[in-house]
């Protein structure tokens, strides 16, 4: 067995500890500053005084009554909520179907892979950003103001909201698509729509279905409350109960919404899992 020769211990000097860069501290300072600005009484919302008011001084008697109402949902009124819930569900379904269909078009326009031209890409991408920056309830507000209360406004609001969400997700998937099939389509002389349909769509289809289900989940959640601004569905009842201070009814509807959303999620997650497989 050969003997193991140890090399001489090297005399490298210990390197000095480097000065920490400013990034960490700058970031921490910025965060602290923004938080202070947001929470203080003068520039912000006055978080601390209001919280301490409740926790230290306690609730007034009237509030106590309301809170206890909340913990006693008016289950006896449940049958009356059935109709509005169906309306909510139908709003979600229509919103998803139309929204996801349109989102397909927008998505194809927002990806360099399928847009067919920088101008179209930029325009569509800008449009998508704009759509995404408006919350669903805001759309509902707009539509109610423009065309009146009712489920139609709700559906249209959901459609626009959907396009924003699904188109973004889908366009990212399209960006990541395998380009080999596209090359083949181009080589065969396919037009813009044809190459999208033949080379891209099959690749993104599972994701598209998954995103659509996700959008449906979001829509169910959203449509339950769009009614608060008059756009139809169970939200209308919720708003009514709230204005009447019938918090036992508010609580009932909240529980129902919770169950509704929960069930939808379970189904959606199960379906999505099977899609990705």
């Amino acid at each position, binding site marked *: 067995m050969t003997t193991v020769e140890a*090399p001489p211990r*090297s005399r490298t000097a210990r*390197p000095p*500890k*480097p000065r920490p*860069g400013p*990034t*960490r501290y700058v970031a921490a300072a910025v965060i602290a500053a923004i*938080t202070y*600005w*947001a*929470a203080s009484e003068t520039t912000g*919302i006055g978080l601390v005084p*209001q*919280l301490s008011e*409740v926790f230290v001084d306690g*609730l007034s008697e009237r*509030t106590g009554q*309301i*809170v206890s109402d909340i913990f006693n949902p008016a289950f006896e009124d449940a049958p009356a909520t059935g109709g509005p819930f169906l*309306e909510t*569900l*139908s*709003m979600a*379904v*229509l919103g998803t*179907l139309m929204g996801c269909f349109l989102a397909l078009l927008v998505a194809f326009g927002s990806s360099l892979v399928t847009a067919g031209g920088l101008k179209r890409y930029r325009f569509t991408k800008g449009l998508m*950003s*704009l759509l995404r*920056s*408006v*919350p*669903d*309830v*805001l759309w509902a*507000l*707009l539509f*109610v*103001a*423009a*065309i009146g209360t*009712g*489920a*139609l406004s709700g*559906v249209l609001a959901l459609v626009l909201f959907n396009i924003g969400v699904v188109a973004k997700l889908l366009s990212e998937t399209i960006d990541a698509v395998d380009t080999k099939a596209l090359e083949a389509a181009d080589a065969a002389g396919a037009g813009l729509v044809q190459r999208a349909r033949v080379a891209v769509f099959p690749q993104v289809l599972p994701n598209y279905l998954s995103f659509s289900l996700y959008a449906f989940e979001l829509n169910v*959640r*959203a449509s*339950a*409350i769009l009614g*608060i*601004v008059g756009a139809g569905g169970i939200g209308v009842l*919720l708003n009514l109960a709230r204005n009447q201070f019938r*918090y036992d009814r*508010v609580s009932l509807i*909240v529980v129902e*919404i*919770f169950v509704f*959303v*929960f069930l939808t*999620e379970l189904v959606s997650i199960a379906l999505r899992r099977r899609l990705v497989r």
Partner: protein
Amino acid sequence: MTVTTTPATRSTGERRPTKPRFVLGPVLLGVVVVAAAWAWGTAEIDLARLLRAPERLVRTFGLMFLPPDLAEFPRSFPAMMESVQMAWLGTVLAAVLSLPLSLLAAVNVSGRFGSGATRQVLNAIRAFPELVLVILIVTIFGLGPVTGTLALGLHSIGTLGKLSSESVEAIDKGPLEAVDAVGGTWLQKMRWGVLPQAMPEIMAFWLYRFEVNIRASAVLGVVGAGGIGALLVDYLNYKEFARAGMAFIVVVGVTLVVDTISSAVRRRIIAGAPGRTDEPDEVEDVGTDALA
């Protein structure tokens, strides 16, 4: 020269395969059609109204944006800032509280039972839309931005907790083993094994949630939680469309700006910028090492 062609049928008796039946497609289409028909009927969409809608929309949008009431800006902007503040504080609150919850909800940290239970709690929290939370919280904390903050924060704990726990579950367990092997405690395992690996992605989720919360907070004012929502509802109710248009532009503008900044910061975090390590990114090779 004659060209011989081989006959189409082979002597082995192979038949051409039949086209596989793609069942999913037609079924899916069927489901979609049925659902659409049912929904259309139930929602009682008035066709006449639907046809009139585009014209009315254009008219309203015209009143709102051509031109918007610029003098409205000094009132809309601070209101939007209040919405931003609500979103910020709500997100900070949720980030701090969701971190320990995410550890509890992660299978590789808390085992199957503990993580399962925590997961369900987080799902339950997530199921309440923010507006609903506001309606409930307003009974205790009254109208105003504090209620909105709490509603946003509470709801976000659910979402952030779930996403963060998925980040935690995706880490490499090698460093965790190393902490065990040197005799470290659970806390030390979290600090040196879990967090260094999971934090970049978790912080990106926090920023993304902030972006989402900005949108949500703009709307919460509709039920009295402060911010620009209340202004918008008033203007639309009283048909002051030009002012509403300005407010709308403010909302979209601020949202886009926040989005842009937030995305840039997120990209930097994921790329492993300095500040993610305890010592900063360091000096590369200072001379050659002992072994060639």
